[in-house]
């Protein structure tokens, strides 16, 4: 990404323009620009409040009424800028640094903006929680921004109202509560790390001392902190340094996909797997888990146990570390003995991680084990909590509902949360909410909670408003808006300001006001730098020494779990829609969930052996009886799942998600209770005769004896570094009747490192966002017509019911040198270009689909219907203007992001220099958290891709077909404990 990044460093003119978001929206040029750029949605033209606006619109309507007789054209005015905004060059995108939060914690981003409309989110390389990469949620946030189902107006008791009406009610209510020192006021939010918002809330709580703040995060972040309380006696949050760890032990910790530092952890983990010079430097991962996760898929030694048993395993491990002769549960002893020995052999360079679904005790054991092994300070550090912890009494949701029940809550303000949908079922949130005399909900969507509150305030998307947010290590980012709120939303900061009676302050002023004290030195300069860089310098928390209580002590205080029998029900956040907040995001709904490849639905995941015992088959509807509650859900038999356990992912069964998400899947929250948020015993399944069709993108999960993913363990690799090449027949490789084409300029190529690919699917969403890839819907996925240009194949190895390994293989177009697709196209719609790309000419394609039949890799995608939405106004803004939006009947496929190649080439030409290696980054490559994808010029022998191709592990997929693919793979390595490496 070489383009300019823009922040608030635009000089005095910028200051004049940007005093507040409202003012910005009112400048004439911005208004003109909006009208021109967003013909279907210009807030001013819809808002007929002012006489001038009214007259203008009337005049325009009359004028255009005549024109519409000739052709249907959206009203559009082409008006040049009177004063050209600084740096805005038509056709050239600008990048703005900001941050997006999940569960309160930030991921730093750079947002690409074309002529004032953000189109693509990239990671911010300077941000610790991104390091330039993104996850699927961050990529898909741009679709949320333009979601036509977003809440678009203030709603009062089901009727459209206005912000001013709301303020009038609010002011009156707050005045009234002033008398009782805010006794009836309750604030409910998700996890908050925003310094400004925290300060505002604390200000509110000091002005109304009897008011209370409660926190509800369905996929909460807190177990780590609670474990620290047990281990260290104080609230601390941990920061991991996986790149320093030789041995990593995960106690149900899906650290590659879950948690505030997931991208950082993934990068740290992968850094110890990408090396090839010395494979012995590779780390080793031991995982015990219940639900197969991407972290589990990377394990060198994996143990599947029900979620409730992880505590026993953790306990056994702790006992074994303390005493070599400890008596262990026989079924886990192999794994525990091996892990304990490995940990003891790597004191100071190992790391034990406990997962969010495990109770605080397991976290405490992990903290103490790390302390015992000398990892504290090397692979793990402790910092003051980043997330705000409300002071005083119980701040849980359960406490709030108790008070609501007793009628003590007179006024409830819900910031961004959706408790009616995602609160534990035993709290009865939906009924109790009706007992509150005044309930106010703020959210991006008019969701389940909004419909049960008196007031609903549309929330501004983080890309529409000023704000701040902190990352896992405490680093703060100033969030800057990319455009004025599409639907007139207000940020939480603005709502809080209104609660405190300061009307009319824009969020920018509020955030600046807060930081004015926190930023030392020349405030304007520091502020501008912070906004521009996407990170407030020096804001990361300093690690602080923490001494754990001895492991033996903690073991003593932790009650030995009773051995439970029977079926367990485990709840986990969904890999794509998370806790349900992304349910209306089509990109995430259609993204195959690792490892099931399910789309559009969750399902009751169950191990093959357990399914056999219970006589269950795939897609069968079962009635789940769990602690007095029932739910019907479809069964999905999932290899590698723990036996005697059923996983139901959260986030589905929404009733008010929007057109995309409503009614999809099964609502796990209807079974989830507050005393057992992540797993509990007492599940009974009753099979029914009903079937429910589940849409998966992959049906066959074994390689059918084909060496598509090549792998070896470290010992085998050391013995034969070019093991991956043995399968190819060198006699026929590259044989051709024709002289091969010579590439004088660039010769693009890609290498995908299977050893570092964690199968997170970020590349798929990144590609979807970059290349305007449409969402096709569940019925089309069922028909096998999903459109992802890059897919991640999953293969199991070993027995069908109990595979020994799972592999991820991202498959984009191979850009074959002798591409089978090219010769069969009758109209020259797919051709080779001068830089070796297999190009697709959309407007030449007639749709014979022969190319797809002849593609051995099946990377071509066809528009069976008119898939791309060309009518929804807001979604038009989403499209990348550099990529054609395809129509019905046209074939499409990965282009190696040719638009980025062209952009890089033009920039290099303008500056009169050769294109540098790493200057052209494909969308999948830039999204990848582990940098498993390398792209570049094969003619440049110093390029990263050329070096990767020289790796002995480099191999081509189906090379025996002589297609000579340009995308090649680096074989996968595993690093099992040495004495077992023969077993692979």
């Amino acid at each position, binding site marked *: 990404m070489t383009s300019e990044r823009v922040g608030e460093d635009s000089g005095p003119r910028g200051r004049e323009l940007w005093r507040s978001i409202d003012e910005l929206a009112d400048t004439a040029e911005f208004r003109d620009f909006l009208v021109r750029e967003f013909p279907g949605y210009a807030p001013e033209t819809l808002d007929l409040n002012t006489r001038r606006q009214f007259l203008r619109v009337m005049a325009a309507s009359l004028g255009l009424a005549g024109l519409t007789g000739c052709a249907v054209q959206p009203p559009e005015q082409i008006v040049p800028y009177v004063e050209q905004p600084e740096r805005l060059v038509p056709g050239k995108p600008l990048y703005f640094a900001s941050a997006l939060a999940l569960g309160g914690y930030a991921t730093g981003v750079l947002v690409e903006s074309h002529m004032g409309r953000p189109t693509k989110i990239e990671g911010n390389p300077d941000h610790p929680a991104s390091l330039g990469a993104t996850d699927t949620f961050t990529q898909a946030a741009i679709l949320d921004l333009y979601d036509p189902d977003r809440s678009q107006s203030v709603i009062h008791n089901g009727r459209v109202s206005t912000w001013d009406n709301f303020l009038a009610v609010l002011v009156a209510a707050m005045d009234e509560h002033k008398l009782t020192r805010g006794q009836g006021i309750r604030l409910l939010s998700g996890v908050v790390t925003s310094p400004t918002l925290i300060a505002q809330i604390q200000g509110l709580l000091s002005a109304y001392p009897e008011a209370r703040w409660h926190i509800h995060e369905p996929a909460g972040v807190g177990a780590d902190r609670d474990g620290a309380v047990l281990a260290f006696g104080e609230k601390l949050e941990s920061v991991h340094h996986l790149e320093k760890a030789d041995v990593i032990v995960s106690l149900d910790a899906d650290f590659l996909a879950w948690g505030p530092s997931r991208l950082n952890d993934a990068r740290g983990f992968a850094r110890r797997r990408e090396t090839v010079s010395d494979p012995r430097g590779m780390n080793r991962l031991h995982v015990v888990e219940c639900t197969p996760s991407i972290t589990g898929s990377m394990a060198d030694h994996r143990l599947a146990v029900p979620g409730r048993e992880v505590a026993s395993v953790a306990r056994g491990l702790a006992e074994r570390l303390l005493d070599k002769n400890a008596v262990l549960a026989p079924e886990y002893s192999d794994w525990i003995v091996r892990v304990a020995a490995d940990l003891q052999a790597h004191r100071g360079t190992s790391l034990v991680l406990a997962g969010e679904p495990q109770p605080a005790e397991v976290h405490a054991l992990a903290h103490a084990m790390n302390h015992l092994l000398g990892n504290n300070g090397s692979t793990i550090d402790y910092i003051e909590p980043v997330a705000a912890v409300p002071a005083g009494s119980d701040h849980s949701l359960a406490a709030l509902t108790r008070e609501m029940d007793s009628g003590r809550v007179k006024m409830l303000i819900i910031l961004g949360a959706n408790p009616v949908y995602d609160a534990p079922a035993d709290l009865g949130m939906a009924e109790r909410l009706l007992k509150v005399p005044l309930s106010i909900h703020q959210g991006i969507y008019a969701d389940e909670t909004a419909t049960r509150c008196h007031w609903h305030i549309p929330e501004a998307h983080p890309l529409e408003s000023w704000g701040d947010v902190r990352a896992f290590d405490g680093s703060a980012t100033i969030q800057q808006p990319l455009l004025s709120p599409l639907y007139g939303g207000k940020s939480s900061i603005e709502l809080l300001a209104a609660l405190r009676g300061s009307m009319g302050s824009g969020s920018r002023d509020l955030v600046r006001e807060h930081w004015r004290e926190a930023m030392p030195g020349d405030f304007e300069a520091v502020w501008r730098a912070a906004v521009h860089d996407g990170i407030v310098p020096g804001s990361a928390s300093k690690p602080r020494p923490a001494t754990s209580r001895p492991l033996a002590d903690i073991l003593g205080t932790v009650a030995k779990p009773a051995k439970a029998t029977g079926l367990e029900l485990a709840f986990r956040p969904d890999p794509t829609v998370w806790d349900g907040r992304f349910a209306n995001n089509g990109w995430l709904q259609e993204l195959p969930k690792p490892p099931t490849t399910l789309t559009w639905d969750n399902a009751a995941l169950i191990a093959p052996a357990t399914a056999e015992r219970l006589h269950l088959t795939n897609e069968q509807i079962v009635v789940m009886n769990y602690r007095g509650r029932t739910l019907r859900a479809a069964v999905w038999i999932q290899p590698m799942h723990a036996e005697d356990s059923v996983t139901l992912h959260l986030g589905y069964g929404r009733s008010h998600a929007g057109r995309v998400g409503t009614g999809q899947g099964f609502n796990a929250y209807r079974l989830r209770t507050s005393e057992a948020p992540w797993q509990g015993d007492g599940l009974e399944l009753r099979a029914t005769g009903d079937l429910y069709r589940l849409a998966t993108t*992959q*049906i*066959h*999960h*074994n*390689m*059918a*004896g*084909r060496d*598509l993913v090549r792998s070896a363990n470290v010992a085998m690799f050391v013995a034969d570094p070019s093991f991956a090449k043995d399968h190819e027949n060198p006699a026929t490789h590259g044989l051709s009747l024709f002289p091969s084409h010579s590439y004088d300029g660039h010769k693009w190529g890609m290498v995908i490192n299977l050893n570092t690919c964690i199968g997170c699917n970020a590349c798929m969403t990144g590609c979807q966002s970059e290349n305007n890839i449409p969402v096709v819907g569940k019925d*089309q996925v069922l*028909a*096998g*017509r999903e459109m992802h240009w890059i*897919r991640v*194949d*999953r*293969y199991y190895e070993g027995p069908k019911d109990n595979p020994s390994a799972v592999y991820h*293989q991202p*498959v984009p177009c191979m850009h074959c040198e002798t591409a*089978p697709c090219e*010769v*069969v*196209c*009758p*109209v*020259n719609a797919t051709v080779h270009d001068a830089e070796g790309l297999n190009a697709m000419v959309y407007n*030449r*394609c*007639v*749709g*014979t*689909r*022969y190319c*797809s*039949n*002849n593609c*051995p*890799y*099946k990377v*071509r*995608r*066809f*528009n*069976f*219907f*008119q898939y791309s939405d060309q009518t929804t106004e807001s979604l038009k803004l989403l499209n990348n203007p550099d990529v054609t939006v395809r129509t*019905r*009947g*046209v*074939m499409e496929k990965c282009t190696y992001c040719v638009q980025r190649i062209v952009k890089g080439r033009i920039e290099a030409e303008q500056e009169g220099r050769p294109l540098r290696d790493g200057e052209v980054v494909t969308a999948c490559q830039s999204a990848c958290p582990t940098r498993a994808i390398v792209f570049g010029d094969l003619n440049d022998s110093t390029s990263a891709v050329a070096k990767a191709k020289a790796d002995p592990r480099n191999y081509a997929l*189906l090379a025996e*077909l002589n297609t000579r693919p340009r995308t090649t793979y680096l074989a996968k390595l595993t690093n099992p404990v040495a004495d077992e490496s023969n077993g692979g």
Partner: protein
Amino acid sequence: MAADANIGREQSGPPVLSPGHSFATITDKISAIVLTRPYQRGWILGFAIAFLLTNVLFVSVAYLFMRGVGIWGVNVPVMWGFAIVNFVWWIGIGHAGTLISAILLLLKQEWRTSINRFAEAMTLFAVACAGMFPLIHLGRWWLFYWLFPYPNTMDLWPQWRSPLVWDAFAVSTYATVSLLFWYMGLIPDVATLRDRARGRLGRYFYGFLAMGWRGSARHWHRYQTAYLLMAALATPLVVSVHTIVSWDFAVAIVPGWHSTIFPPYFVAGAIYSGFAMVLTLIIPLRYFYGLGDFITMRHLENMAKILLATGLLVCYGYLMEAFMAWYGDNRFDRFQILRERPRGDYAPLYWLLIVSNCLVVQALWFPAMRRRVVVLWLISLTVNLGMWLERFVIVVVSLHKDYMPSRWRMYFPTAWDYATLFGSVGLFLALLFLFVRFLPAISMAEMRELVHEAEPVGHGGDSR
């Protein structure tokens, strides 16, 4: 009159023309079907059903044009479904006509005379059905002409390496030549109808079609020469069309497609299915229109023999395909042909195909079976089904599991797939009903020649 003469050179078996026919009786009998016979309930009912099915086709194609090919069951990896199966099936059926008319004419097989007109018409209608499918299966069907080299501002030609371009030429050439050949053969007969038509409309209609034919010796001389030339021209097409259609598959690298045996095996299969369809149609025609005199058991038996011969060729093709997959030791071919077809997801269809195409036809070794019209008719139906299944197995089963197991997926036809298939059958039948009603289904001129040749006196059979 040659009351008891056996007509034709071979002296054994039933005659190709029942005894007792003269020039006049032939002309009377055949032209009566068109000119004097009233509309009958059977014809009206049959045509109504066929026309209804034709409308099913129109509706499904209209809906297809509105929505896109997504209304069918095609997916990744099976990008070609019923449309291409139907195309290959119909074009195969369309082989019998030209074979009978041209090749058997050149080989002087006189027995062809009474069936060639009908077979040619069938060919033409089958090719019309076939030609429709590649067009409508395009994602952007309105741009179909981009497959042809035409002068255009884009300065682009088609991509000559693609078999689909060859296909476009092969099929359009075949359709053109078939039409010309059929129409030319019709000219003397429509002239007869013009002369015999009682209504003004009929006279104009047939007169227009007859293009001024007066039956002069000069006309006949030129007609015969041109007809022979057309036959010579059409002959290579019989082989070339299906060879090129087979290249659509053989040139691709899909396991199960990529095979050098495809051209001869496709041609044999085409003739097999073509003769099966001729039998399927001509047996009811002969029955309902009382044409047993002209289409005798001799004809049916000869066709049964050809059916048997080509059926054996096709089975040899299956055998060789399997042998080469085994002998070639290509992992993907072996998987596709030796495992997936006989034991995979579509195995029942494969075995149904083997039964229909290879087993049932063995009954025709026995003369008693060949002479039983009902048995013959049922066998011909089985072969039609078997040949359709063969194309299904080649197109769909090969595609559904090729190289990447992650992309393996079943193909399930939708209601629109079936509607299009049966709609095309409807179109085919409707055209045949119209043909039988408005044009002579048996060539009067050539039948008269048969009578002439059978005359005991005169210049015998060597007049040509």
